């Protein structure tokens, strides 16, 4: 029997080895994914004992989120409150035990909980005895954000405005929105999650892909000019229809422009010219320029990874593709089964911003600085170049072409009385050409660009256009940002 007893002990050794293996799996090897699990609220519960820092607007004064104490003694916890409610709901997000964390609350969590780094935290706990969160000052302009939200009211859409030179996002408005104070009630959160019609929890500025329509011609023009295929003065064929990839393509209203300059083609948003330009540039080069503009990757914004989506050409399955699509139609913001250009509003604001900033694309930013409770600045974001998209001369040429769009073309509704604006309109037919997605991207002032903007509205009735319906909103937000009230 002794041999069998020894074998039994060997079996016990194996079984206990399995126990240790599984324990190490949970405590060490898979610990990180368990800590990130959506159902795991342990981190949040611990954090609620620490007052989170404030989230402030760019003026350093307007409070977007603050912690309020509830209960006392050992039971004291801090609960988040959002004084500005729906206006800043999307960029700021929320932080509640029941609901989890989103938006800046999530991306800036370490700063807000005072969790700077291992040593910094230990040092602080030793010196002050208590852990406290830092305040986060965002780049959001409270006045412009409020105006943008009001302008969008009643429509689904988004307005994103940023400073091209610094990448600071000044406006990130998305409607329909939600009041972050309301999601601490689980029933409300569930109802918001289930609302498939309005999708109020989706931050359309970074999380929704739209057809860009003619605003994408700016990208095509940048590629055509920068590669030397065309100049603003090149004479191009604006006749309509023309055969693109074997299928006839019309200009809007089937207007035949005849031979015109490339500048005039952008001013009047001539489809056939830009489709030809796209074919001339070729899919490979066009994709290369798109990648420089930041397409085909999540925005490099300091925002939670899972809450952003990449722009680019997507096939009917929704997957990003870099070839095999109809480059002529993609070049004018359209496409087909095998590939349709899809963009986020932030991406289009970055396109305008790169042109405005002499071809240099700066990484977008939502947080400007982190301030400790004693007033010391812990961290300040500095502008970081993301890419040199095009030569400065190309950017200069494109700026003049876009200025003409507002001066005498499709975008005259965006003109401001005392400041020159450069822009591009877009009107994409959606839902089998029964509805329009209207767009306007712009920057101002033309000679020294301070702000770039993208405005888009969903599901507008036929007869609407980017020039008539989106451009006026852009003008008002730009006016506010430029201080003209």
């Amino acid at each position, binding site marked *: *029997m*002794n*041999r*069998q*007893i*020894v*074998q*039994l*002990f060997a079996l*016990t*050794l194996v*079984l*206990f080895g*399995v*126990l*240790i293996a*599984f*324990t*190490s*799996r*949970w*405590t*060490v090897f*898979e*610990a*990180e994914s*368990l*800590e990130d*699990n959506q*159902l*795991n*609220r*342990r981190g949040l*519960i*611990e954090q*609620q*004992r620490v007052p989170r820092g404030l989230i402030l607007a760019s003026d350093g004064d307007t409070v977007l989120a603050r912690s309020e104490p509830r*209960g006392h003694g050992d*039971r*004291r*916890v801090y609960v988040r409150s959002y004084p500005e409610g729906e206006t800043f709901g999307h960029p700021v997000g929320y932080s509640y035990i029941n609901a989890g964390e989103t938006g800046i609350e999530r991306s800036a969590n370490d700063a807000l909980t005072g969790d700077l780094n291992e040593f910094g935290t230990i040092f602080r706990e030793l010196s002050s005895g208590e852990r406290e969160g830092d305040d986060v000052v965002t780049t959001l302009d409270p006045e412009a954000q409020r105006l943008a939200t009001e302008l969008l009211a009643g429509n689904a859409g988004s307005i994103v405005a940023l400073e091209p030179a610094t990448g600071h996002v000044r406006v990130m408005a998305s409607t329909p929105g939600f009041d972050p104070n309301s999601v601490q009630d689980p029933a409300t959160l569930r109802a918001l999650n289930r609302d498939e019609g309005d999708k109020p929890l989706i931050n359309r500025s970074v999380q929704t892909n739209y057809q860009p329509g003619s605003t994408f011609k700016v990208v095509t023009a940048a590629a055509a000019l920068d590669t030397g295929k065309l100049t603003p003065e090149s004479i191009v064929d604006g006749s309509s229809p023309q055969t693109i990839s074997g299928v006839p393509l019309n200009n809007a209203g089937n207007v035949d422009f005849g031979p015109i300059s490339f500048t005039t083609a952008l001013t009047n948003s001539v489809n056939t010219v830009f489709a030809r330009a796209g074919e001339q540039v070729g899919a490979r080069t066009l994709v290369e320029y798109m990648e420089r503009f930041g397409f085909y990757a999540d925005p490099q914004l300091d925002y939670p990874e899972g809450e952003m989506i990449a722009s680019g050409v997507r096939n009917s399955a929704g997957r990003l593709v870099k070839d095999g699509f109809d480059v002529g139609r993609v070049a004018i913001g359209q496409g087909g089964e095998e590939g349709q250009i899809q963009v986020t509003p932030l991406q289009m604001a970055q396109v305008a911003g790169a042109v405005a900033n002499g071809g240099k694309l700066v990484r977008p930013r939502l947080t400007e600085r982190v301030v400790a409770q004693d007033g010391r600045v812990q961290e300040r974001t500095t502008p970081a170049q993301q890419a040199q998209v095009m030569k400065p001369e190309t950017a200069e040429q494109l700026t003049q072409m876009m200025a003409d769009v507002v001066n005498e073309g499709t975008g005259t509704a965006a003109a401001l009385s005392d400041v020159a604006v450069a822009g591009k309109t877009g009107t994409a037919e959606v839902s089998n050409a029964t509805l329009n997605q209207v767009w306007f991207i712009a920057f101002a002032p033309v000679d020294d660009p301070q702000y770039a903007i993208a405005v888009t509205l969903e599901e507008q009735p036929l007869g609407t256009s980017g020039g008539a319906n989106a451009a006026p909103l852009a003008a008002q937000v730009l006016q506010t940002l430029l201080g003209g009230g």
Partner: protein
Amino acid sequence: MSARTRELFGLIPVSLLVCAGFAAVLMAQSQEASDLTATYGAVFLGLCLLGHLFIRARLPDADPYLYPLAALLAAFGLVMIYRIDAELAREQAQWFVIGLALFCATIYLLPDHHVLERYRYTIAAVGIGLLVLPRFPLIGEQVNGAYLAVKLGPIQFQPAEFAKLAIIVFLASYLRDTRDVLVRARLKPLTATAQALLYGIPALLFVLVVLALGLGPLAAVLLGVFVLSAVTLVRERPSLKHFGPLLLIWGLAMLMLIVIRDLGSSLMFFGAFLALIYVATSRLSIVGVGATLFLGGAAYLGNTVSHVQSRFDTWLDPFDPVLYEATGGSFQIAQSLFAQADGGLFGQGFGQSLLELPGGGTILPAAHTDLIYAVIADELGLFGAAGLVLIYLLFVARGFKTALVASDGFSKLLATGLTAVLALQVFVIVGGVTKVIPLTGVTLPFVSYGGSSILANMVLLALLLIVSDHARRDRDRVGPGGLV
């Protein structure tokens, strides 16, 4: 150095753990180390010493490591329970006093364990009676769908803890009697045709069944092992007498699954049974048939009994949002894993883990019983948890060592069975907490809070020590060379 002096030295780490553990918990909860708690530690050590003196008097030759290892586990548990709830720790300490009394009583009343053989059928009947007790109306109580507890007025106890001892004693004595019949007889070699028929027909049937029913790979392997073991068994042309006890116990285990609806305890009982069968007969074919029949039965019940089925579902996908929200769903196992993830390599330290929600209530259900291993992994990390498993392994090693040293069949089988059932109990609960197998409500021996568990395991320890005392005394008398 005598065995008893080694035992005394073995108690030193226990005293260190008790002192350090209590001090750490108190510091973490930022309380002054009060005289009262220091008294608890001193009383616990005093009790350990008392037990040691009793063993010294009654069982001078018993294994010197079993008792300190059990005391170490108990100290571990007491510190953890104290950290969870001081009041529970006080109750637990009282149970240890009663447990120690029962331990001494067992040793005093049972100078020779062979007496048990005489009452084996009575013992078996008592064991089975204990198992079905929770299903009786008025006294039975259903916890999370399983019938494991009995409530008599204010006293609640888990009869399965005592039943496991009764069943092991019965099996050990029964198998000692019948093992001679069960042991493989010398087989005549078969002719080629007979061999082809014996193996060919079942193989053909197996393939046909797999194809006809479209069985998955797991089910096919299960069926394959069953057919192979069955064929090997049939080749030995056993009488019904061979199969009788096997079928009886298999039926009993299945009945237990139906009656108490707890996969963990049935696995524990049936596993110990198979271990004993194997040690007694050294025939893998019986183990193969038994194990496949058990797994098949468990799988069938898992698909039909909703409580067992939900345990399976929560085991397979604890992070499914629907299962997580459901009553009795995967919340417990998910929280167990989250707690372990917080532990890391070295843990957060005694008293540092998150157990209570700020608004009151607990985030880790049954932290002091089922999930105590998760709390240990959280506070002491992988190293602490692995250390605990190693203590159990040492205990099991000493248990099997006792079985090896023992000279008669009953002693060998009794020590093997007691050790195996304890090892299986550790595997079932730690495996459940770490998601190796579905989580069921079994206690972690000597560590978890619970009166029945402590009392039963103290008796188990007493029985092992009695066997060990006899075995080592016989060995020393005969000498290391054995009987010549």
